[in-house]
């Protein structure tokens, strides 16, 4: 029986076994390739999406267990309508190869929605599961602070 899934506001019927991780449903079945595969074992954060507003590793959530609406990087903002976090990422020129950045941005967006003005320690705690082999961390930190300021102004 197909599973019903809501992603970025659109409802999908997915005909795949229950244990297929959400990551591979998004990427291969729905063509939402902004969410990346890096490790498959919850150790890199490349696959981070929001389920019911919560940052989750899509490689660890089986299709049958998805408990709420899913937001991926494509649903956070678009090139013509950037989310404040994406805007800060562009302004701070964060990305190098860029492969980890969807996950970094989704993680940061979830952090800021719960903690609008995070301290460096809170940023450390929230972001430590997201690996970046290019070492863009200094700019990630700066961009999170900038996004917090921008969101605060929008208030």
């Amino acid at each position, binding site marked *: 029986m197909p599973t019903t899934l809501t992603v970025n506001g659109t409802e999908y019927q997915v005909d*795949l*076994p229950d244990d*297929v*991780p959400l*990551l*591979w449903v998004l*990427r*291969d*079945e729905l*063509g939402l*390739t*902004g*969410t*990346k*595969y*890096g*490790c*498959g*074992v919850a*150790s*890199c954060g*490349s696959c981070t999406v929001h389920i019911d507003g919560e940052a989750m590793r899509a490689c660890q959530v089986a299709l049958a267990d998805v408990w709420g609406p899913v937001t991926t*990087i*494509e649903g956070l*903002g*678009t*090139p013509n309508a*950037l989310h404040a976090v*994406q805007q800060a*990422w*562009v302004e701070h*020129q*964060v*990305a*190098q*190869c*860029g*492969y*980890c*950045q*969807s996950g970094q*941005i989704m993680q940061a967006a979830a952090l800021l929605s719960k903690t609008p003005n995070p301290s460096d320690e809170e*940023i*450390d*705690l929230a*972001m*430590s*599961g*997201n*690996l*970046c*082999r*290019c*070492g*863009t*961390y*200094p*700019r*990630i*930190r700066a961009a999170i602070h900038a996004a917090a300021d921008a969101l605060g102004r929008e208030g």
Partner: protein
Amino acid sequence: MPNWGKITRRTLLVGSAAIAGGVAFGVWQYRRDLPNPLQPGDGQATLNPWILIDQDGVTLIAARAEMGQGVYTTLPALVAEELDVAWEDVRVMHGPAAQAYYNEALMSHGLPINDYERTGFHEVMIEAMTVLPKMIGLQVTGGSTSTIDAFEKLRMAGATARETLKRAAAERLNMPLGSLTTRDGKVIAPGGIELRYAELAPAAAEIDPPRRVALRDPEDWRYLGRSMPRTDMIAKSTGTAEFGLDVRLPGMKFAAVRRNPRLGGGMLSFDASAAEGMPGVERVVDLTDGIAVVANNTWLAMQAADAVEIEWAAAPYPDTSDEMLNVIRAALDNEPNSMLRDDGDLDALDIAPEDREIEAEYTVPWLAHATMEPMNATALHTGDALDIWTGSQAPGFAEQRAAEAVDLDTDHVTCHVTFLGGGFGRRGETDFVVQAARVARAMQGTPVKVTWSREEDMRHDFYRPAAAARMRGVLRGGFATALEGRVAAPSVTRQSMQRMTGLSPSGPDKGHVEGMFNQPYAIPNYRVSGHLADLDVPIGFWRSVGNSFNGFFMESFIDEMAAAVQRDPLAFRLDLARREHAPSSGVLEAVAEMSGWTGRTPEGTGRGVALTYSFHTAVAVVVEVTDQGGDVSIDRAWVACDVGTALDPAIIEAQMSGGVIWGLSAAAMQEISFAVGEVEQWNFPDFDSLRLHNSPEIEVRILETQPHLGGVGEPAVPPSMPALANAIYDLTGERVRDLPLNRRLSFVI
């Protein structure tokens, strides 16, 4: 839509830029020698392989792999600066694999000479070496050479096109050439007349471009020397940049693969009966050296691939990394392959009683690239042609190897280059491309994306080799009077050249000793020999290559020499560098000032310094560590580099700080080890890197004193590792001579 020969629409979408009708501008200098790969369609003309003009603006061909180092920004800026177009109107694409895009800087980099003291003879040699890559179409991204290679070539391409457009305007308006100027994609004539490049391009394409044009004075640069908005930034911040793993084709299937974890051993037999019955599985393909499972979903393919029972043959190398290291250490006493520096006379050196003589041995482990995006390639075999989509640092080689693997003519194989989710040398290899080609042949007519699991990627790399060094130094009156270094490791140059060209170069292997023989230190007796160890483990280019181990050996030992005579390690280095190479002493002075270096650190804090000249750039690093209840915390790093001309400061800053984090990660915690012939690491939990919370605050200063351009992608890596080990010595008093450091102490994780 131009008809670019074999190029499909997909390629044209790199960086979300589509081409709708345009003119390709012709090659400026090599026009007669190398065919322009841009084949324009109806009503279009071509002058040069770097520039395509259409109604919406300009498309510039980067022709190097964008793997994070900013070539999709810096290379187009070189053209745009001279062509005189508005940055907002510039779009960028990789372009086809073609000989016109060969990399001449890469080959001259391999010459066994000391880069920082080039002579006339050396310049002639470098010139000669540029012929070879032209012949073999070496469109390779590597060796931190992209910008060096492009600096003159691309500015000339832009300037020549601009002058040709002006000539077309002069003819059209019947006005003297000298009365015309250009601005933001327009030729401007007296009386307020403006002609858009797009209008002039078809006529310009018919005009023979001028042979010699003057380049702009750097004083007048609008783009170069500034931090430009990266052309790939919005795509990479919105999940819309297309990496190899993101390629989608109609009717596409998804494949997972397994190869022998005993690297280079074959496959004896396999039983796929369980896998074939698993959900989503379409087919199990025998690749002779492994298997592929094709399914309707990558994860289902991976599950089924794991369920295939396979009997593997043994590896052609010793079982454990300990045994391998014994082979490498033993090679230190072998006949040397090279002695690229032998200043003074070490054999005749009389050691006086008041001299201080020290010796030390060091080792470093095998390392994986672990690019964030695992290896992958998508391929479609249609019977008489093969199309491949992948992130490749060497698309020309990829096409050749894939063609051989599936018995097609290279002309019928096309490699479409996507964004690379990290390269670091790994994506210059072609194994993943060849594999996809073979799976696609078995699935003729159906496009297949072959994705490696992280585990497959970690355990089937072309590793940075393990290496060993034996160092001897003599100190006289507080100065280094003699240094003798021996380095042993398997030869990356030989193995990778053998793979790429079928020929293994004999003669001295510069890559093996770079970072030790060519360091800018005035040591009167200075000898370095390279010793090749014979081990059949797959090895390859890893960010900064030989410098990645020699930098650690050399700069750890220089520190030991300073300590042996109770001298400040920074002042000791400055004495040696000042008399040899001003840019190198300059970066040392810069990090001293930035870090407020006093040579003293409070209890619980340690500082270390290191200097490495590599890829034509001197980089000095100071690292500060603290003791956090028994764990070492890497708190701060100061980096100074001298790149000659800083074409894009923000990109250089990013490469320097990223390079430091890369190097510190390796030095602190990374190691690939072997047991029963298999790599023992599987995934990031056992091959981790620094993360946001435990990487240092980094400050970078860019100097521009040397007369030539320097590379920026790699040179921060080598000095970062010894700077950390030296900081730990300062903190603990213990000299750790074997990497990774976490075998001996624990870091904040």
